[in-house]
C-alpha cells in the first residue's frame, strides 16, 4: 500500500449512465415538480387551515360510534353478498372469454376481439362502471353487483388467458394427436394444467371484490360504501370512523383468508 499518485476523489457512477444525463433528469424532475404544483392552484392558507381542520375532524371521529351497528352490519353484509355473487358470475363468464382471449386456442379474429374487450374493460375504474350501471338499473346493490361482476369477468378472463397461453404445448399436441375435438382438447389437456392456478386467482378476486365492494357505494351502487358516503355528507364523522374501522377489519380478514387458502392450494 505505498502511497502513490492516487486520486483523492471518487464519485459513484450515475444510475442514468452519464453524470450529465443524471443532472438533466434531476433538473427535469425539478421543473416538473414546480410546474405541476403551480398548476394545481394550491392555496397555502387553505392547506394550512387543513391541519386545524384535520385535528377537529380527528377529534370528532373519536370515539367511533358503533351504536348504529345494525345499519353498519346491513351495509357490510350487502358488500359481502355483492362480492360473493360477483365472483361467481365472474368465474362463470370468464371461462368463455378467457378461452377466446388465449392466443394458442382461439382463432385470430376472436382472439383480437376478446383482447380488445379486456383492454378496454380494464382501463375503466370500478366507480366509472358503477355509475353507468346506476344510470341503467337505478340506485342499489344490483348496480354494484353488476359492476363487480363485470370487472371480475375482465380480470379473471385475462388471468385465465395468460394461464392458458402458458400451458405446455406437449399435452395439447398429444391429445390432439389422438384425434380429439376442440372441447376434448380443452377438457383433457388444458383444464388439468390451468385449474389449480385458476382456483387461486378466483379466490384472489373474491378478496379484491370485497375491497372494491366498499367503494362502488360512493356513486350509489349499494354496499357499505353508500353508508360511508352518506355519513360523510351528513358530517357524521364518529359513525364514519366506525365504518372505516369495520372496512379495515373486513378487508384485512379477507386478505388473510385469501392468502391462507392460496398457500394451501399451492
Amino acid at each position: 500500500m505505498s502511497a502513490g499518485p492516487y486520486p483523492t476523489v471518487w464519485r459513484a457512477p450515475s444510475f442514468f449512465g452519464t453524470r450529465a444525463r443524471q443532472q438533466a433528469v434531476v433538473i427535469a424532475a425539478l421543473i416538473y415538480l414546480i410546474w405541476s404544483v403551480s398548476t394545481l392552484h394550491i392555496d397555502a392558507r387553505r392547506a394550512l387551515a387543513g391541519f386545524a381542520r384535520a385535528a377537529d375532524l380527528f377529534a370528532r371521529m373519536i370515539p367511533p360510534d358503533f351504536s348504529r351497528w345494525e345499519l353498519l352490519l346491513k351495509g357490510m353484509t350487502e358488500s359481502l353478498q355483492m362480492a360473493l355473487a360477483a365472483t361467481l358470475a365472474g368465474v362463470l363468464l370468464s371461462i368463455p372469454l378467457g378461452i377466446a382471449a388465449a392466443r394458442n386456442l382461439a382463432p385470430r379474429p376472436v382472439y383480437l376481439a376478446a383482447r380488445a374487450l379486456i383492454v378496454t374493460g380494464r382501463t375503466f375504474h370500478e366507480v366509472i362502471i358503477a355509475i353507468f350501471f346506476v344510470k341503467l338499473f337505478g340506485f342499489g346493490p344490483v348496480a354494484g353487483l353488476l359492476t363487480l361482476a363485470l370487472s371480475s369477468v375482465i380480470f379473471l378472463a385475462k388471468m385465465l388467458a395468460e394461464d392458458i397461453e402458458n400451458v405446455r404445448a406437449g399435452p395439447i399436441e398429444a391429445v390432439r394427436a389422438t384425434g380429439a375435438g376442440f372441447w376434448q382438447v380443452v377438457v383433457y389437456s388444458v383444464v388439468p394444467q390451468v385449474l389449480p392456478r385458476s382456483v387461486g386467482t378466483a379466490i384472489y378476486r373474491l378478496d379484491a371484490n370485497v375491497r372494491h365492494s366498499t367503494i362502488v357505494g360512493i356513486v350509489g351502487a349499494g354496499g357499505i360504501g353508500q353508508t360511508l358516503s352518506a355519513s360523510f355528507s351528513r358530517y357524521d364523522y364518529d359513525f364514519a370512523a366506525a365504518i372505516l374501522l369495520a372496512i379495515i377489519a373486513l378487508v384485512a380478514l379477507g386478505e388473510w383468508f385469501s392468502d391462507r387458502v392460496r398457500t394451501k392450494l399451492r
Partner: protein
Amino acid sequence: MAAAPEEKQTESLERPLLAIDSLTKVYPGGTRALDGVSFAIRRPEVIAVIGSSGAGKSTLIRCINRLVEPTSGSILLGATDIVRLGAKDLRQARRRIGMIFQEFNLVERLTVMENILSGRLGSVSFLASFTRRYPAADVANAYAMLDRVGLAGLHDSRADALSGGQRQRVGIGRALMQNPDLLLVDEPTASLDPKTARQIMRLIRALAEEGATPALVNIHDVALAQGFADRIIGLKAGKVAFDGPVAELTPAVLTDIYGAEDWSQTIRRESEEETSA
C-alpha cells in the same frame, strides 16, 4: 500506518494481541457449538483453524466480532473484552477487526469502489456514507488498495460483474481498508477453484505480513492450511483438540481431529507446496 508494526510488537510483550478464554456458545436449540475454547495470539501470525464441518470453526470466528453472541467466556482484543461491550463500543471494536467471508458477501449491486470503501463505514458519518462522499485520504487509500489486490481500473465495475476470485479480492480489500488489528477469515477459498484459492491465500498471507496483522483463518483444505499458515488450531466438537506450529501437524493429530483416514497423501511439506504452485 508505517508506525503500526512497532506499536503492535511492543504491545505483544505486555499482553497478547488476542486472548480467548473458555469461550462457550450454546445455540437456542441446545447445540453446544463451542465448549470452553481458549487460546492466545501473541504475535502477528497466520493461524489456520481446521476441523470437520460442525466442529465450531465458523461459530468461533463469528463470536470474536459477535456476529454470533457468545454464551460465556471472554475475548480480549488488546485490553478490551469484546464479550462485555455495549452496542456502541462493539461497533468501535468491530472497526479494529477485518472480516473476509466464504461467499465474499459483497453488496452485489454496488460498485467495486463502494464495496472497498464500505470498510471505512465505521469512521465516517451516516450522511457521508449515504452520499458516498468519503474523506480524500480514504479514497486515495481505496485506489491504492485496488492496485494492491490486483483490481486496478475496476473501481466502477459492479460487484456482480466480477469473477469469484476478483470478488474475493474486493472482500479482502474491504477488510484491509479498516486497517485492522485482527483479520478474521472464514473459509476464504471454499467457493473458488484450486488455482484461484492458492492465489487468494497467498494474497491474504502477504497482506497480513505487510500490516503485521494477525489472521485467524477457517479452512477446510488441510494442504492449503499447511501451505500458508504459521500455526494450526484444530477444533473437534467445539473444543480445541490441537494447537501448535504447522510442523507438528501429524497424521495422528489429523486422525484425532477428523477421524481415521489415510492422511499421508494430504500432508505435504511447505516447500513442496510452493514449488508446485
